[in-house]
């Protein structure tokens, strides 16, 4: 792997045609970077959940934690105690790729490639990252790359090697602004799609939160998913169990639908505006009667 000379600049194609022909002519998997600019909007949670949903549909999925130094994909998946090596070990040839991959506890076709916790993002050379992703694409149908917050080296390393991008934002001005910035910094050809996370329909109705339409108007990206804000996500992270594996979870359902759309299925975007708790509806009814 170290000998591969992937392009030094950020290009979506990461493998050289020569190498492809030399390998068995199988279909290369899709490498998708999940990014946002702003931290805390749900990149890691989305990566874990979409990955789990894809794996539950029978796909071979590798989740790559690109947040060197502040890794959390392992914790969100509940695999933190099973991490033995990380991708820098692989790049630096201290271990084989297989040794670093951590199979998920629940869905066997999903594995995690963890980040190093005690290193820095600058320790990773972009060319090495590109080569690593290229290698993963040979083995997996989907390679989901969890991008760290920011737009520096961590971001640059996460996007290199990706063919597609998912932008995650919350319906809130700072997040949307940062998402917009990031879209501008993505390499060409990634065709980003949008996930609007932590939507609270009641607040949207009361004019206290941006609506999905408003967010989409600003960012102008095709919608991949709309995920409502529910306490069950907190509980799921507490337990280290992706919510998309929970059949009765509303958030899980939203993630499963996003995964379907990722596979090209035509699934209607949820309209949460009609919902609301009893009190909201009562208040709205009373308010309407004044």
């Amino acid at each position: 792997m170290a000998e591969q000379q992937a392009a030094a600049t950020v290009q979506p194609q990461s493998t050289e045609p020569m190498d492809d022909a030399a390998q068995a002519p199988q279909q290369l998997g899709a490498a998708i970077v999940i990014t946002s600019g702003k931290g805390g909007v749900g990149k890691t949670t989305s990566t874990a959940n979409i990955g789990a949903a894809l794996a539950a549909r029978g796909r071979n999925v590798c989740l790559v934690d690109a947040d060197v130094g502040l890794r959390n994909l392992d914790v969100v998946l509940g695999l933190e105690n099973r991490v033995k090596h990380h991708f820098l070990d692989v790049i630096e040839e201290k271990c084989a790729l297989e040794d670093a991959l951590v199979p998920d506890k629940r869905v066997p076709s999903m594995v995690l490639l963890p980040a190093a916790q005690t290193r820095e993002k600058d320790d990773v050379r972009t060319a090495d990252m590109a080569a690593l992703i290229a290698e993963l694409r040979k083995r997996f149908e989907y390679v989901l790359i969890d991008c760290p917050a920011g737009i520096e080296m961590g971001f640059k390393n996460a996007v290199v090697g990706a063919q597609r991008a998912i932008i995650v934002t919350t319906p809130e001005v700072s997040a949307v602004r940062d998402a917009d910035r990031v879209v501008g910094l993505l390499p060409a050809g990634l065709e980003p799609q949008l996930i609007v996370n932590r939507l609270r329909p009641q607040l949207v109705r009361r004019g206290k939160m941006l609506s999905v339409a408003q967010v989409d108007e600003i960012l102008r990206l095709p919608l991949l998913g709309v995920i409502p804000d529910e306490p069950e996500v907190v509980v799921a992270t507490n337990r280290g169990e992706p919510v998309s594996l929970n059949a009765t979870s509303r958030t899980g359902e939203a993630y499963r639908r996003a995964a379907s759309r990722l596979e090209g299925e035509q699934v209607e975007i949820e309209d949460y505006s009609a919902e609301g708790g009893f009190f909201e509806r009562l208040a709205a009814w009373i308010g309407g009667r004044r």
Partner: protein
Amino acid sequence: MSWLDAILRFFRPMPSGVVAKERLRLVLLSDRINLAPDIVDQLRGDLIATISRYMEIDEVGLDVTFETRENDVALLANIPIKAVRARPLPPPMTAAPPVTHDAATGAVDLAESQDEEPEAESGPVAEGESASPIEAQEVIAANVSSRRKRPKSKGSP
């Protein structure tokens, strides 16, 4: 986990906050250990120094690591033992680095291990409480005399 635990766990699942706290405890443990290799080295050195007081050990074959497991983080030490001392050596003096060097002639394993593991020297010295000058001298005297005795005791089976 006993069958009773299993049944109880079924009927009364642990609140996720409790689960989270325990997971956090372990993950922070693991993170903090991994982030302080110099402290781990110091610990290793201290361990060697302490165990060396009771037995001769094979420092080349020694392996001290931390292992993260499903429910805990464990300190694992594999320390090949060459011989057990008839009597444990006294603990190293905290405020007297010169003594340990001087004792290189008489002291066998203690000085050797000190030399080979510089962190071990710094460990006790840095972290130990400083004794008063008079106490220090008494202990130094005791150390030196015990080290002088050691070659004889080592000779006897």
